[in-house]
């Protein structure tokens, strides 16, 4: 996974209906870049049969008092 560039962010923001100018897109790219880097080892590695709702199954039942 790579960080999105300012140009890509500008395009995505426009498609989302919240257009931003180049300066803002650059600021967003710089701000979010490290976040994408931090998630890079996970992105593209998850097995197919894994959906978000399975998260609650990982919450165990614990009532200790």
């Amino acid at each position: 996974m790579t960080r999105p560039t300012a140009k890509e962010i500008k395009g995505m923001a426009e498609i989302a209906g919240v257009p931003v100018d180049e300066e803002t897109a650059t600021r967003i790219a710089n701000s979010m870049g490290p976040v994408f880097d931090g998630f890079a080892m996970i992105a593209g590695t998850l097995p197919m049969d894994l959906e978000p709702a399975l998260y609650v199954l990982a919450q165990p039942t614990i009532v200790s008092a």
Partner: protein
Amino acid sequence: MSTEPALMTLTEVARAIAMKLVSSHEVTRALLHRIAQWQPHLNAFMTIEAEAALKAAEEADTALAKGELRGPLHGVPLAHKDMYYEAGKVVTCGSLIRRDFVATTTSTALQRLKDAGQVRLGSLHMAEFAYGPTGHNSHYGPVRNPWNVAHITGGSSSGSGSAVAARLTFAALGSDTGGSIRMPAHFCGVTGLKTTWGRISRAGAMPLSQSLDTVGPLAQTAEDCALLLALMAGPDPEDPTASAEPVADYVAATKGSLKGLKIGVPISFYVDDLDSEVARVLDETLAVLKREGADIVKVELPDQRQLSAASQLVLAVEAAAFHKRWLIERPQDYGSQVLMRLQNGLAVPAITYLEAMRWRGPALAAHHAATAGVDAVIAPASPVPAPTIAESDVGGGANAPALLQRLTLFTRPVNYLGLPSLVVPSGFTRSGLPVGMQLIGRAFDEATLLTIGAAFQRATDYHARLPKLPEGST
């Protein structure tokens, strides 16, 4: 126990009112007196409803005289973060956009406290739309730390942390999406409980990120937090994500001993690059826990930076989605920092957001596996004590963005995993700023955290110390 009503703990004052040792009116007046003294220094309250509070207190006293005890909070005056909807009340959410927003419903968490008999004192200041870690608010001014008014309170439950620390309310609701209960608890020297995701209904609480948002209390003690959690926890037809997992006897849990409990200390991340005073307080806290009977062991946790990154991806997208209409129609009405944070969500492709959501289950399972041998994990709430308002504000210098990132370094992973975490006041810096440690538990195991927190508070007095009114005040 303090004989000054405003200085009692929530548990003490609730009992004293119920036993008619003190009246609700007397207690409410005492708090309003302190609020009048402190509010000009702290800016902790958004609204102060003195007349209505005194009237409600009188009604509570009258009811009690007739033998009508409404519940465990009968006649106890409380104020909460200004994002919990109460029908007929303005709920600003710390924003200009909602300056005149009148709620038409009452949040489930708040309703449960009302049903238990609480008296409304007013509402507490907060970061704009709960999207800020410091307590800055460009519309209503910063909330200030009672231990040193030049320093931040932490956010986003800034007013909650400040008001509880100065004893202007016995407890307060906060919310925690990336650390917004735990940071004010740490910086202001109060006890704060971030609950398991799904433990308390979020219905009628302003949303920021539906996958990460949690409701929880800030109070003087773990026992007080237990009392409030017991009243609020459990399923809710208004919130399908509110869990039906059994609700433990949290108050009973606070009577437990540390003997036989294993507390894990991470071998990395949470102990790396700590401010020296935070590191000292961590060592001192471990010594107390050990002395009280806990077994302190080392734990190796999965990569917390990946969890933090995933947490920020989820938060950025969900917050931007909630705010999309106003981002289009009223971008000028956001504070500049909040607008920038909201715009960050525009950078995340849908597939990346969904990957971050899909990874939550395996990430939580990996955490539980890594911590299977301990009852809780202990870590600093933040690597640093409270910075000054100036150095963490817009224009705070080249280091300000890095400083803001650092504040939430130790809190975001817990939100991603949806785990409970209790911050307890654990010491002070040499300059007198509080330092808090967080106890991180397994999902739905708030009870064990409350056992540890209460035992620590029986052995220490950090939670009972009082900030002094700034000089020149009357």
